[in-house]
């Protein structure tokens, strides 16, 4: 039960893609939260999650996304998602939360 965190600077300055792979669960929650908070502390202006390689996301993973979105607004965006992640996010009703971020002009698909 591990998650791989890879941060890639993409697009304009300060825009970072956080590429997660593996299982995004309780064990990964603190690590991901800490990594993203550090990105913002280091001057990132926008963080986009790429969850295409996440096999499994549980409520803790959803909680990370919702908290970050709540605390940082549309500076946190959601990029590609695997079908299983998309399904969980849809059920949790948080996909709409991030849909607004797309209007914010991040350009993620």
């Amino acid at each position, binding site marked *: *039960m591990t998650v791989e965190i890879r941060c890639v600077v993409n697009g304009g300055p300060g825009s970072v893609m956080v590429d997660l792979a593996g*299982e995004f*669960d309780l064990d990964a929650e603190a690590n991901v939260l800490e990594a993203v908070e550090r990105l913002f502390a280091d001057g990132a202006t926008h963080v986009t999650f790429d969850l295409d390689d996440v*096999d*499994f996301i*549980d*409520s*803790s993973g*959803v*909680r990370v996304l*919702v*908290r970050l*979105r*709540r605390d940082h607004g549309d500076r946190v965006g959601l990029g590609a998602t695997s079908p299983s992640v998309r*399904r*969980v996010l*849809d*059920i*949790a*009703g*948080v996909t*709409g*939360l991030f849909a607004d971020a797309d209007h914010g002009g991040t350009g993620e698909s």
Partner: protein
Amino acid sequence: MRRRVHAPSVIVLLVCLALTGVVSAVARAVRDDTELRLLRERTNEAAAVLTAAANSVRAPLAGAAAVGELTGGETDAFEAVIGRAIESGQFAGAALVDAADATAVVTVGAPLSLVFDGSERARAATDQSLAAPDLAVIDTLDLPGRRLGYGFTGSAPDGGTRFVVYAESVLPEQRFGAPRPQGAFEQLDYALFLVGGTGEDGADALTDANVLYSSLPALPRGGLDAVSRVAFGDRELALATTTDDVLGGDLTHRLPWLLLVGGVLFAAAAATVTEWLMRRRLDAERLAGDVARLYAEQHARSTTLQRSLVPRRLSVPDGFEVAVRYWPAAAGDEVGGDFYDVFALDDGCWGVTIGDVCGKGIDAAALTALTRHTIRAGARHLDSPAAVLRWTHEAIAADGADTYVTVCFGFLRASRDGWTLDLALGGHPPPLVLRSSGAVEPLGREGTVLGLVEPRLETSHHALGAGDTLLLYTDGLTDAPGGRALRDDEVRDVLAAITSASAEDVAERFDASIRARRPSGGADDTALLVMRVPGPTDTANRLDAVRAGASVQDRDMRTSVGAPAAPVADANTVVSARIGTLP
């Protein structure tokens, strides 16, 4: 509290003490043997010294005897020869004795104890000297003055013997308790006996009478350890010794005692260490027992707490079948956050809910309780499920837990055609309904999780027909890593395969599927609530009963989709008759 000493410690103590005793005894025997051997050697050394001393007596006497014979008893010549020995302290006094009549020709030095005056005693001494082949040792111990006499005879040029030289040396003042001299006799208690030669009775025995002198206050009763005899003129000196001190050195002497003391100390230490180890082991065992008991208590508490999070009994509408399952997570000592509830409200309306708190443990349990009771309270005052969930969201957010809860909540009401379900989803998987026709449909519209962000919530309306089965579950059923959950389509397949089963059968079917998928438990708690709408006959009967209740009590707060105007008392009576308790 009295502390019991454990058997192994006592055994160690006794074994060590026994070994110590044996080793000490052996060391003692070896020491005694060594002591005796050393004592004999030392006594022989002392005897050798004594031999030399005896020889030194002879020389001046022999000289004086020769001079006496040669000069024919000239006193000046005799005095000159013997005077040196007297001056040196070797003799106290000496006399030149006429052998014919046993009278002194001349006496030199101190007065003699044995006076040569022709007496019988003088005659005997003279005869002894004449008879002796060399030096005669003359016993004068019975006379005053503590002297020992020596007689010596020479030969005149014509071969005859006319004179006897007699001399006396001084014995130590005390016969017993004499001081020990330095040198060979050091470390020895001794007794010097004059024995043999005269043929008298007892002359050869080591008795008090024969003692010349001794360092001992009295002869020891058990005899002396070592005896060495030395020829002394016509008689013998017997040197008997015993140690009062350590011949083999301090260490040899003390070794048995050191071993004994050391052994006892070692035994005590070994027993103490054994006892300490025993106690530590027992403490460790006790601790392990405590830990196991605490773990069991903790587990029991968790179970109790878990049980408190779901109602003991569900107040389902009359005729409804209900079945519930709860699969705790594998790491089962933390309370999970899943809950469900079915409760009766007024006027023929029931609240149905299932939910899942994100998180585990006591905090999750507290939030679960808050959520469930907030829903119950909200259901009494609000008219739509979405409003109930919004109210619940506000309560959770106000609680400040900074986590979220997913909830599915609905109002279940009897209608003319069967039942209606008004439903809202707060981030929760949609319930499924297995129609009596065999079709499986998800119910409800997507809504947001409660507690973290402003939720989007919608109420949807559904009709339930007789024989429909409602399936409410938490995401543990369908979401688990590595294929340890059922996929959505698998859930539908399980449902579709059972068209006319009881609620209990359905729950049992899912139980089997889940257990096959994760025999050792899942990562997340999973809850399942199955409700089966009663058949047409049951429903008709029930509606008749409701209508027969006559008096209508409309409630403005809950006037959605064609709910029958059911009298409160009747509805409650029906339910309470079935389950016995009511909120």
